[in-house]
């Protein structure tokens, strides 16, 4: 045994910031997450140079998958220029040298907070969603040990009861984003705080989605072609936000998830939330020949 065989040459920073052992742990846990879709797998979750709750879970997944040829897109609330998206993009470039892209079609890896892009993701793309709270049962059971037991028993009665009570009280399910969804008919998961508009995009998708909560130290996944079914009652169908009929005041794009912009006169204007999709719509309108991908929603409706 020599010292050289035990150590590696000194480097100021590991490639992709995380050391080899952190990456191996994440790989092992990602394997389990893919093999049991929607089931939360605990992992150590290393500390990274960013505050907990700011995408450290997604970041650790991206840092494990990244290589110098991988084209990376980072969005927050659908926007590439959001300050935290810019910060994460800058960090990824700084520690990996991987090229960044804004174009959904060009990206190999998309790290996102709270949105899934409007253009359909292909099977060669990986979507990494940042997750603040991985536990869909938190609102009915804040204790994680008990909640874990409930998942083990597939005991989702209290979840259903909560939805039922909302319907009785308010005439509809009041869940906004993070709509609890059954994955592969077995595990209820939170799809992360994406709007209801985005949840159907996960169902039988072509791409792999990895969801990672750094602070809460849980990782889970939705493989391609996997059932993701929002919890609904037979007679009260799932309803996405009523954005199908709205038009973006800047790009003219219609039938996508919108940001509501309050106006001085008390009214609202709407702009398309997927910022790069909005850019494409403007450039196309202005006569540029650019490629826009197929979208999940067509004319404001998700085809069944």
């Amino acid at each position, binding site marked *: 045994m020599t010292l050289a065989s*035990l*150590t590696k040459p000194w480097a100021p920073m*590991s490639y992709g*910031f995380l*050391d080899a052992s*952190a990456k191996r*742990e994440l790989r092992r846990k990602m394997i389990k997450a893919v093999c049991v879709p929607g089931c939360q797998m*605990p992992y*150590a979750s*290393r*500390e*990274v140079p960013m*505050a*907990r*709750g*700011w995408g450290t879970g997604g970041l650790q997944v991206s840092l494990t998958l990244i290589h110098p040829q991988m084209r990376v897109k980072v969005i927050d*609330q659908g926007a*590439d*220029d*959001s300050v*935290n*998206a*810019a*910060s994460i993009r*800058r960090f990824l470039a700084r520690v990996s040298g991987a090229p960044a892209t*804004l174009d959904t079609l060009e990206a190999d890896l998309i790290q996102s907070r709270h*949105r899934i892009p409007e253009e359909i993701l292909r099977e060669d793309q990986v979507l990494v969603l940042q997750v*603040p709270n991985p536990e869909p049962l938190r609102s009915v059971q804040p*204790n*994680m*040990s*008990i909640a874990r037991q409930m998942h083990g028993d597939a005991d989702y009665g209290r979840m259903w009861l909560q939805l039922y009570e909302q319907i*009785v009280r*308010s*005439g*509809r*399910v*009041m*869940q*906004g*984003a*993070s709509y609890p969804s059954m994955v592969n008919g077995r595990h209820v998961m939170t799809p992360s*705080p994406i*709007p209801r*508009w985005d949840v159907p995009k996960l169902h039988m998708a072509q791409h792999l989605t990895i969801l990672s909560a750094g*602070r809460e*130290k849980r990782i889970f996944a939705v493989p391609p072609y996997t059932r993701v079914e929002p919890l609904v009652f037979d007679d009260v169908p799932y*309803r996405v*936000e009523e954005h199908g009929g709205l038009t973006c005041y*800047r*790009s003219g794009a219609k039938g996508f*998830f919108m*940001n*509501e912009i309050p106006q001085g006169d008390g009214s609202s204007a709407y702009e398309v*939330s997927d*910022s*790069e999709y*909005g*850019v494409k719509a*403007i450039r196309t309108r202005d006569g540029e020949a650019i490629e826009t991908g197929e979208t999940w929603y067509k004319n404001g409706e998700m085809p069944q």
Partner: protein
Amino acid sequence: MAYVATRGGERAIEQSERLFREAMGPIEAARVAEIRAAMPYLIDRVMGEASLYDEDLAALALAQTGGELYEAVLLLRAWRTTQPRLGVAAAVEQGDLFTHRRISAAFKDIPGGQVLGPTLDYSHRVLETDVLAGKPFDPPKVDPADNPAPAFQPSVSAWQAANDLVDLPKPDTTKGEAIPDVTREPLLFPSKRAHTLQSLARAETGSVLALGYAAMRGYGQAHPTVNELRLAEAEVMVTHPSGTAFSAGRVKVSQAEVVSKQGETLGLGFAATFGWNEVKCIAAATLDLNAKGAPKGSATEEEFFLYHTEGVEASGFCIHFKLPHYVTFQSSLDAMRDARAKPVKEPAE
């Protein structure tokens, strides 16, 4: 491109960081050295919460963050993540601690004596305002004791165990790499003993105090008696690959044992951390004392207090609410407006 100025976001975050750093001014080695020399207890607190013992790095972290403690601890933790693990130090027995201060509230006197050591406990909390007027505060010199206190003492609980007053936990002989490490594996419940003690050692002082205080006020079942509070230095003994054991230096540590009557025996709570931090150790030991049999969801349940005293996670989550949440907000607005638009059904009788 009129729609989004992607560079705009990047420029904004760069300039906001510059604003912060400009206010701090240039950081030189002298400033770091001054912080280290002037604020040992702050350094200790930061090293404990970071679970990284390096006074220079802790002082640097404080200099870089202007004393924003959560940021300083995060800086150190993120640095710690990148460091290779070269070895595992030998376990330190309490009797091997080079003791500076050791007091017990349970007995008037203890073997080895009550050693007050350095403390402000009996000081009058008076500001030396003359300093501001240009007159240096020059503290009087310490008179050495005629008979110095012994540097090495076993714990008070060892005496109690010998007198059959307390059930000490079975000595854990797990060694080296086999010791569970909460920074390399997830904390799960019921938690491993090593994970509990490591989490408390890394916990944020203020949060541990808040929950420990809640337990002391009556939200816990057990009222703590400070069996022993100790400030000490521990020898870090490591083994060279050739087999030679050697000391890599000493680290300051603090530890607290608290006890309370549980039936016919004494329950024991324990906590220890890097650096000298008495409040944290007493509060953490009180939580440990109360954890056994605590009701689920109570402030003294292990899951509750270990999650909620993790300062880096708690502060990160707290400040993450500054991030835009307009997508989730929009989604909630949609559900709210729709529910308002329809008449509420009266539940059927």
